[in-house]
């Protein structure tokens, strides 16, 4: 038997001014199940709340309806009051008779009638409410960061600083990512290695951080607070625990013609290698594609020279499993392949380079020891043309539809550095728009023009033509002058668009995290939850979420870390109890709900059912993970058999409200 109490608030004159509160209480007291009805000037006040508490105790109320302001205002207040009187807090419903009644109507009669109907709807709903308790799940106090670039490093350091264990999985032999390949950083022009490598060392030395370098995530199971992740440690044919990073093997290795991937193939290295001097972990790796010993069993020089006995030609991939409470995706980016842009002669001439290649060409640890030389004949370039938006803002299908965001600034940086070091080199930058929002960014670009004399030309390069004399004839338009230009350049630098790392898509599938059409991870809310994925417990850091520069990446990395810390400090996760649940006897396992769920909260389990003839049968039925479900209700409508329902907003409850309103 329902015992419902109705409490009508005057809200001073806010409600009572246009609604006859006494008449409302009187009318509602005759509704079925209502055993108590009262009105009071301020229901949310201490004494108002006491009125509710007393009534609950005195009348043994099973449900409470408060006719007052919006539930967005005081729902929590009244729920707490009910709970303190021993009534489940989800047995409280609010009829919004202020914002949605008294404040918008002037006529007392109409407003009172409407208030009664709203009250009725709330009573009809509360009669069908069920006590709900927020479920609790324990939290594994360890985080996983996928990707060891500046984003991953910063996130890991911040999480470790808060005292939590954190693992970094990096697919390359060393952490550092793209920033390690960059020469200088804008807008301050400090050297990237100088600010990055100390952070890398911090990671290595922090006892809370464990680095799985040369490793990949293979599988992800579980949910927020309780992920189980399979990690593959790829065989590097060197025992990490023994290798001291002395580098003797790399000197003695006879296979010196291996392309140096860290320098983007601009020079060569040995088959056993340490990517760069400050690599973390500083351990050698054998490139199996080039090592003679691994390919045909002839050589073994590195093993002979290694005093630590670290070389192990028989090393196998190692598969490990770890538990985590939160996962941060920091998989970063790559410049796009330029196969669709042969008009710029990238494939035809070695003197046409990408901007990232230029970083290596200018870097002191790069192929030319920091002197900028043409790759083809190692001569000093006197004219350099920069082409912006190569593959960015391209809707023709050849490139990417978005703006890559970082190119305007790094091109200004390159132009400035070149003009600074080689004043006899003319630099032309062809741009469509110069986009420099950011602190001190536009000033930086203007400095390139005004102080360093870089020629910025509005227009696009149409074609780069390698000439017999080794020069590159650049044909372009100068839109402001209304001219077609022909510039004989020594080098052409292409600002290639950036795209998410290729591993991101398979990772997103494993994580059930959503992606946009460009393979960037989607954030939970574009404005308000920019570092969380819609999947609970998965966080986003860096360019994997969208193009951004280093300052932005670091900011987002720290924000993601803060979110992770906020999750890991909790011993248990309390979740919103208004979530979906499947009626297993009705569910036919069709997967309709699973497909619409934006959170991947629905899985399927095989369950044994007793049949009427006393036999048992195993059926596949939907099962909602309470920790992951956010309670949107998309599945309840998608379910063809009506097995899915949403606690707190059940089909029955909403229909009861509809009925009450239409009565």
């Amino acid at each position, binding site marked *: 038997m329902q015992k419902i109490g109705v409490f009508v608030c005057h809200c001073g004159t806010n409600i009572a001014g246009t609604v006859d509160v006494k008449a409302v209480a009187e009318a509602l007291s005759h509704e079925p199940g209502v055993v108590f009805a009262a009105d009071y000037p301020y229901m949310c006040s201490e004494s108002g709340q006491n009125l509710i508490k007393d009534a609950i105790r005195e009348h043994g109320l099973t449900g409470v309806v408060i006719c007052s302001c919006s539930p967005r205002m005081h729902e929590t207040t009244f729920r707490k009051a009910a709970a303190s009187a021993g009534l489940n807090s989800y047995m409280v419903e609010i009829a919004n008779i202020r914002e949605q009644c008294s404040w918008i109507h002037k006529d007392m009669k109409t407003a009172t009638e409407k208030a009664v109907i709203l009250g009725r709807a709330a009573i009809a709903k509360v009669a069908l409410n069920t006590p709900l308790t927020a479920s609790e799940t324990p939290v594994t106090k360890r985080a996983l960061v996928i990707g060891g670039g500046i984003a991953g490093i910063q996130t890991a350091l911040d999480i470790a600083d808060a005292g939590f264990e954190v693992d970094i999985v990096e697919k390359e032999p060393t952490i550092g990512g793209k920033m390690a390949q960059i020469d200088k950083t804008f807008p301050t022009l400090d050297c990237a290695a100088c600010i990055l490598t100390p952070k890398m060392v911090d990671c290595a030395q922090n006892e809370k951080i464990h680095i799985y370098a040369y490793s990949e995530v293979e599988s992800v199971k579980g949910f927020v607070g309780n992920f189980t992740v399979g990690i593959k440690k790829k065989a590097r044919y060197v025992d990490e625990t023994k290798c001291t990073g002395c580098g003797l093997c790399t000197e003695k290795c006879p296979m010196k013609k291996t392309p140096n991937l860290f320098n983007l193939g601009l020079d060569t290295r040995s088959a056993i290698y340490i990517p760069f001097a400050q690599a973390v972990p500083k351990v050698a790796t054998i490139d199996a594609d080039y090592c003679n010993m691994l390919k045909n069993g002839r050589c073994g020089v590195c093993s002979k020279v290694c005093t630590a006995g670290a070389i192990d030609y028989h090393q196998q991939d190692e598969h490990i499993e770890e538990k985590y409470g939160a996962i941060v995706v920091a998989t970063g980016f790559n410049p796009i392949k330029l196969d669709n842009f*042969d*008009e710029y*002669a990238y494939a035809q001439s070695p003197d046409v380079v990408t901007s990232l290649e230029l970083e290596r060409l200018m870097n002191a640890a790069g192929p030319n020891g920091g002197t900028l030389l043409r790759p083809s004949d190692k001569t000093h370039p006197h004219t350099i043309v920069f082409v912006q938006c190569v593959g960015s803002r391209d809707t023709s299908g050849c490139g990417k539809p978005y703006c890559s965001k970082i190119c305007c600034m790094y091109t200004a940086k390159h132009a400035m550095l070149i003009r600074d070091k080689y004043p006899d080199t003319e630099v032309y930058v062809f741009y469509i728009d110069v986009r420099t929002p950011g602190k001190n960014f536009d000033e930086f670009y203007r400095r390139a023009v005004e102080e360093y004399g870089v020629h910025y030309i509005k227009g696009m390069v149409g*074609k780069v*033509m*390698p*000439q*017999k004399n080794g020069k590159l*004839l650049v044909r372009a338009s100068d839109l402001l002058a209304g001219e077609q230009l022909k510039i004989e350049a020594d080098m052409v630098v292409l600002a290639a668009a950036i795209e998410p790392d290729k591993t991101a898509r398979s990772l997103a599938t494993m994580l059930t995290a959503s992606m946009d059409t460009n393979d960037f991870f989607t954030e939970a809310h574009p404005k308000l939850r920019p570092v969380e994925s819609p999947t609970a417990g998965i966080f986003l850091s860096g360019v994997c979420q969208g193009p951004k520069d280093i300052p932005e990446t670091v900011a987002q990395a720290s924000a993601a870390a803060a979110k992770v810390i906020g999750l890991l400090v909790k011993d248990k996760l309390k979740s919103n109890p208004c979530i979906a649940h499947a009626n297993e006897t009705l569910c036919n396992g069709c997967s309709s709900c699973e497909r619409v769920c934006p959170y991947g909260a629905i899985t399927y389990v095989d369950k044994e059912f007793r049949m009427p003839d006393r036999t048992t049968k195993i059926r596949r039925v939907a099962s909602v993970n309470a920790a992951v479900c956010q309670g949107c209700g998309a599945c309840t409508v998608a379910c063809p058999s009506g097995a899915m329902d949403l606690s707190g907003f059940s089909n029955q409850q909403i229909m009861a409200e509809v009925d009450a309103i239409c009565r």
Partner: protein
Amino acid sequence: MIFSYYPGCTLKTKAKELDAYARRSAEALGITLSELPEWQCCGGVYTTAEDEIATKLSSVRALMEAKKEGHALVTLCSACHNVIKQTQYALNTDDDMAFKVGNYMQCDARAEADTKVIHYLELLRDIVGFDELKKNVKNPLTGKKIAAYYGCLLLRPSSAMQFDNPENPKIMEDFIRAIGATPVIYPMRNECCGGYITAEDPAMAKKNSTAVWESAKDFDADYIITACPLCRYNLIKSESPLPVIYFTELLAEALDVK
């Protein structure tokens, strides 16, 4: 193997050698080119306007004719190839166009003109195969440095032509290698010779063509080869010091059927 063959008007008059060498070479390679019993001039240039229907019909007829014959259609002249390919592409992608053409032809034009169209070079690459061609070469042109001139018609628009990489093609270079010569790669090989503008502004055509052969000459080519009679005409008119010949002539020479 039998293919339908669309020679086009110029190959019947001023570019007879382009046609004759192609037929002889195809025979030597075991390919039968069966000329369409009835064909009309393609019009020389594709009208891009979407409200121009009549000018596209001769290509549609050729496609339908070839469909009746039941073989893929081989073209040789770059212009014919371009017009027929673009017409077919428009039919396939533009519903409105397909509808209007269907009204003219009183049939389901899209379905009845879905013949596969290949250029003679594609025939060599995809059907014969350059490796196979190499085996059939009796008279390799060793030591000859040859500049392939694509012009625009074979390559662009690449969405319709699907011929080769429009900015860095290699089909003609591969062909040159197959017949034992050395290809010369020069940046102007896919730029326009001036085309029909020679009727309107001969000086402009000459300027464009000159830029092409100068670039080829810069890179020390001995010859320029082309598949287009108009390209050849423009290059010769602009007083190219390099001989400009049809690629089929070299093919015939290499196969010893000249």
